[in-house]
């Protein structure tokens, strides 16, 4: 299989399949899920059978349906946050690289400061105080994450800006907007795309971790992280219940990482050996 002339490795193909399936499930959740995610349909912790492939959970709800709806929440939330953080990070990163001077210095210092602090702890502290309503969650994490995007976007842009065709555009008299959107951006797409994948994974895992620790998505909304939290005690009785949502999280992340790893490997070279 080839994309734009590049051979797609088997690993990457697996990744693509995983991601596509997950996206479809998230999009079509109400159409696919056999049962509603919040209504009990039987006894708590009922064994899996033909109707309920993974059995029922602690409140008698169908686990498969909850997983499907959870996909929507987990993936949707992560996508929104990543998109927001990307927007903030790329615009500020490019601006810093193209303008240079004190703007660049100031932004970089602030970002360096924010980056050297542990995000989980910070999110923890902030969320424990501000509460965990979805908008708060989204904005807090997007801002914290945008610092990493800033760093990458700036470094990519700085490399591009040092090339002569950008100087040629400046000499022409082109303005800031043209240079960023028409000269820098088209050349920044490959590394930015890879970074988007990585950021998505990180955000996705981060939300799930917060939910697992009780500070993320709150009931009755279900996401995979809080499902793990709800089912955790069952592991001691031999049930694999918490593994199902955890596995779902793991599989999607692995899929995205497979793709990103392949994208990054296209841009690397090695050394020759003997004849």
């Amino acid at each position: 299989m080839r994309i734009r002339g590049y051979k797609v490795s088997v690993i990457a193909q697996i990744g693509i399949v995983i991601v596509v399936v997950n996206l479809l499930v998230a999009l079509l959740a109400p159409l696919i899920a056999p049962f509603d995610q919040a209504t009990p349909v039987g006894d708590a912790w009922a064994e899996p059978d033909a109707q309920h492939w993974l059995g029922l959970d602690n409140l008698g709800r169908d686990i498969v349906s909850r997983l499907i709806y959870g996909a929507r929440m987990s993936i949707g939330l992560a996508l929104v946050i990543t998109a927001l953080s990307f927007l903030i990070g790329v615009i500020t990163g490019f601006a810093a690289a193209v303008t240079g001077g004190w703007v660049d210095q100031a932004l970089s210092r602030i970002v360096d400061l924010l980056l050297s602090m542990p995000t989980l702890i910070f999110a923890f502290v902030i969320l424990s105080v501000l509460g965990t309503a979805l908008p708060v969650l989204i904005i807090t994490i997007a801002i914290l994450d945008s610092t990493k995007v800033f760093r990458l976007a700036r470094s990519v842009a700085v490399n591009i800006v040092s090339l002569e065709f950008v100087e040629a555009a400046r000499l022409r008299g082109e303005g800031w907007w043209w240079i960023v959107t028409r000269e820098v951006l088209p050349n920044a797409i490959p590394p930015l795309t890879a970074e988007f994948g990585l950021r998505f994974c990180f955000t996705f895992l981060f939300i799930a971790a917060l939910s697992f620790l009780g500070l993320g998505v709150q009931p009755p909304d279900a996401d995979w992280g809080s499902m793990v939290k709800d089912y955790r005690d069952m592991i001691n009785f031999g049930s694999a219940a918490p593994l199902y949502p955890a596995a779902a999280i793991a599989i999607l992340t692995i899929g995205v990482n497979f793709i990103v790893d392949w994208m990054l490997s296209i841009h690397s070279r090695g050394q020759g050996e003997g004849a």
Partner: protein
Amino acid sequence: MLKLVLNRFGLGILTLFAASALIFIGTEILPGDLASAILQNTATPETLAKMRLDLGLDQPAYVRFFQWLFAALHGDFGKSLANGRDVLQEIAPRFANTMFLAAYAAIVAVPLAIGLGLLAAIWQGGIFDRLVNVVTLMTISVPEYFLAYLLIKYVAVELGWFPSLASVSSDTPFLERLYDTFLPMLTLVLVIVAHMMRMTRASVLSVMASPYIEMAILKGLRKSRIVVRHALPNALAPIISVVALNLAYLIVGVVVVETVFVYPGLGQLMVDEVSKHDVPVVQACGLIFAATFILLNMIADILAILSNPRLRQPR
């Protein structure tokens, strides 16, 4: 070069200061205030006013901040709202536990990761390399609790080799401690070994692509000598950076692992106390975590500066 190191050190102190400020700001914007949180239902306007005075809440924020910081530097974090005990006393044993777990994981993980990374770089393209690449790609993708529950279900519950709850107390003997905490240690190790190994491999390979390596090959030197004498010294800086960064990550990852295994560490304490709005404890935990994280990052950067060959010999 000394100047660079001092610079970085100064930056570290500044960051610590900023972090403590942020923590303070984050916890002090409470709906309701400390006084009412303490007095709860017994609050009357007079008792509230008196409590506020006692707690110094009438003073402006920045004064309170410096008082808090100053006290913290002396080990006085105030009293826990949940049980009235001295925060430092609550935290100290927990902190020791967390450090034990982190150290246990680090001692196992670091040599393993660097060794595996070097081997993968030397045998690049071979079966070993490709296998390790896929496996680590998977391990770094998954959340810690997934690995943790996987281990618990199959190793603890089904096979019964290790306990599923790592409940230790301050008088648990050393060897028994190692046994009890084996699974949480393993979970942490699996995650950070993957990261460090990949970075070691990537750094070494990146250095191996340098032109002076080609020159070394053309001088007819053995591959092992090339990797150890020529590549490694130049790859050392990024490797050290990654190790330190992963140790810093460990501090954060430990929170989740402690929760899963119900291990009495600082992370689990923080999680518990957050839901109770026990502000002094949360502040203290946050500060300690942040400080350790920032410290490790700073050490990483300083070590990277020290091991850069170009910076060691001035022009």
